[in-house]
């Protein structure tokens, strides 16, 4: 690749990957927290 443009191209792909990762991980973390609180609520209930 022409090195004049390398930085622009690679940083845009890198940012794209970061956005994908962010979108992927955030719901999973939220789910973990939810399940934990649900489990705690159930354990207290029982």
């Amino acid at each position, binding site marked *: 690749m*022409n090195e004049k443009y390398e930085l622009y191209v690679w940083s845009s792909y890198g940012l794209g990957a970061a*956005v994908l990762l962010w979108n992927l991980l955030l*719901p999973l973390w939220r789910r973990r927290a939810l399940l934990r609180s649900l489990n705690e609520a159930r354990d207290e209930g029982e």
Partner: protein
Amino acid sequence: MWTWFHRLASPPSFYRFADRLAPWLLGLGLLLLAVGCYGGLFIAPADYQQGDAFRVIYVHVPAAALSLFVYVLMAVAGAIALVWRMKLAECAVVAAAPIGASFTALALVTGMLWGKPTWGAYWVWDARLTSELVLLFLYLGVIGLNQAYSDARTAARACAWLALVGVVNVPIVHYSVQWWNSLHQGSTILSLEAVRDPKISSSMLWPLLLTLSGSFAFFFAVWLRRLQNEVVARERGANWVRDCVLQAPLAAVSNEQSGMTGPELDPSMQSRQGRQRHGEPRGAD
């Protein structure tokens, strides 16, 4: 058709449906994106004018297309939520906003990274760029509004109203390059004329179609996941949550404490949880 629709709209059956569909969509999306990005970076030839700088298109165009599509989706879901008071549609509005906002920001930033080497400026205040920026603010408004209310239903319905009013901006973004004299180029693939007379060589087109479809599949996968979370959070007391969420394989996440093992572990789920553990060094714990 309608009974199927109604069944799907009930939280428990939606939850199971999403559980089955999301892993496939995610796998498909990531695969298409990986192949498309590889093709875009290494296989597609350099452009006759822009050289290698044009390769930003494989990130920029899918992000921009999603930013518009997700807002329209939010407005449609918002209309359904307001007219038929469907809970799932309310969740859909709220769940789509952060994803849409992230892709809008990505479209703006990659656009800047494309503009500097080609146009000669990171940013100009022309119609396309300004209206896309307005779109980002609309997304941020929806996210902020959702957080301002303590009651989830009121918040979601307020967001639905905002999504409906804001959708006026979407055609302005899309047609801005036709209506105004603009520095931004016209549509390469998303216009009637482009279908009749392709504006991009096929050796450069296929990676674009792959990243485009991959991004949409990815969006639907993470949207379904967010929707599931949203539904569960609202119905935390309901019986079906206890039956189908806590007993389901996904409960394996919390099994370390409770010592319970899920009945049937879906392999794709397992790998996702593995990734989740790795990605969590300073996480929620």
